């Protein structure tokens, strides 16, 4: 058995850092859940859209390096870079989606995976984006305040992250619940049957894919401004797989599950990394991480929550039965 390492302390700074990570991955996974969980499109390249958003925001911010952090101009560039990041990744989503959404299942997964790699390699070979080195993203929204700087910056980003996540969740939920929400679900259930009932399946798929890409871009914007420097290595395939893992772990088609799974996965990762359980467990972290995932998938094959949503607790509408 292990003993808790005495030297580790759960400082507020550490907790805030973990929560920022949870918000980031919840955003990424929720956007992928719209594509995969609700839309039925298997994408392994979501990190590509994340990268496009991050670099779009980072590049724009780097042009404004001389702007006083925390000034009105700083905030304006901060906001404008969000719009730019979302637009860039949505455009990338459309570019990839139009030709690739004709592909099904495994083939779509391979095509999106290739897209993710292409994005990374293009960035690596673009000097204006820092090439394979880091692109520095100047701080735009914080006035340096000596030692308290780090803490207040992190708190600010926790608020920004929660707000951005809330926007993503509300928009996705409204789409899924909308009059056409059931049509989206029908496309996932059986595309041919949906088409034969008059559902314009391609339009729905492209729309969901582009919106998912746009939200991944928003997550990229958040990440770029938070870390202050981004590199191609931050957007490799493992990131895409981790996003997919959170979606599957939380339950395809459950936003509540996505947030919960992001919290569990990111929290677990950071706890093991922190060494709070001692050096032995830290060393075997990757193994433990994998084991926990295997266990969850064995015990909860439909993810932690399946298709359950928090709102289901409060809603007792007479509804058609649904397979558990």
């Amino acid at each position, binding site marked *: 058995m292990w003993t808790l390492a005495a030297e580790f302390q759960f400082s507020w700074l550490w907790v805030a850092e973990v929560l920022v990570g949870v918000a980031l991955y919840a955003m990424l996974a929720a956007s992928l859940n719209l594509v995969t969980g609700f839309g039925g499109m298997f994408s392994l390249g979501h990190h590509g859209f994340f990268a496009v958003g991050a670099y779009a925001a980072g590049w724009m911010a780097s042009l404004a390096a001389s702007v006083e952090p925390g000034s009105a101009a700083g905030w304006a560039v901060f906001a404008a870079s969000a719009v730019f990041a979302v637009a860039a990744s949505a455009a990338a989503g459309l570019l990839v989606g139009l030709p690739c959404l004709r592909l099904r299942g495994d083939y779509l997964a391979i095509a999106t995976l290739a897209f993710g790699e292409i994005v990374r390699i293009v960035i690596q070979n673009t000097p204006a984006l820092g090439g394979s080195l880091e692109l520095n993203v100047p701080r735009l929204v914080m006035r340096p305040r000596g030692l308290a700087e780090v803490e207040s910056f992190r708190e600010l980003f926790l608020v920004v992250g929660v707000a951005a996540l809330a926007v993503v969740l509300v928009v996705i939920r409204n789409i899924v619940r909308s009059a056409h929400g059931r049509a989206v679900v029908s496309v996932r259930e059986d595309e041919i049957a949906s088409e034969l*009932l008059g559902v314009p399946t391609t339009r729905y798929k492209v729309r969901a894919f582009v919106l998912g890409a746009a939200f991944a871009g928003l997550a990229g914007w958040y990440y770029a401004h938070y870390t202050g420097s981004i590199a191609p290595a931050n957007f490799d395939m493992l990131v895409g797989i981790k996003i997919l893992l959170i979606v599957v772990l939380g339950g395809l088609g459950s936003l509540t599950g996505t947030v919960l799974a992001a919290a569990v996965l990111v929290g677990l990762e950071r706890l093991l990394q922190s060494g709070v359980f001692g050096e032995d467990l830290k060393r075997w972290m990757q193994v433990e991480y994998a084991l926990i995932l295997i266990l969850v998938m064995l015990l909860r094959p439909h993810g932690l929550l399946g298709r359950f949503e928090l709102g289901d607790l409060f809603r007792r509408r007479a509804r058609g039965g649904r397979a558990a």
Partner: protein
Amino acid sequence: MLVVEDLVVAYGAVVALHGVSLEAKQGEIVTLIGANGAGKSTTLRAVSGMVAPRRGSVRLDGREVGGVPAHRLVRRGLAHVPEGRRIFTGLSVRENLELGAYTVRGRAEVAARLERVLALFPRLAERIAQSGGTLSGGEQQMLAIGRAMMARPRLLLLDEPSLGLAPLLVREIFREIARINREEGTTILLVEQNAHLALSTAHRGYVLETGRVALADAAPALLESPRVRAAYLGAT
């Protein structure tokens, strides 16, 4: 209502239809019979827009629809119940039926259609809250047809409604098909392996052989035809 002329359909290099011509008039039940691979399902797919014809024409109410995507044809009054039923197994019977009314505007209209379809298939009313996957094969077929009827189609395409069903259920399904034709006035194009039952239900029939129309006649005449009897009805 439906006129198909010289229809050629190919999947890549494989030509499935070599110039099929057929017709379905308002209010008719027309059946396509033939062996596996004769091109029956392909004909339906080309009519409903699931595959684009390489050559030839498909006209619905006098307007060319060859190559128009399937989802647009639903609004023009066409419904296709595909092979293997393809119901949404994870959704309830009610949700399945409501999706069938995707092109229907207005809650009241949808409710009226639902009531009508449940009157046609009372067994679906009993199972309304059950998930589609828990239905028996026959009930699933009823659900597939009922779902298509939600859009109040004028032309209904049915692909192998008897597939995998017990004989008793097959007869029940065919009674319902005849009833839909009679009571709703729906024109029906029926693809079926069970040639005897199909010809007994239909007004006219076409016999397809390797992508061509081999015979076309009134259904009773085909039932008596020596060639059809020998090849498709198991008579010697």
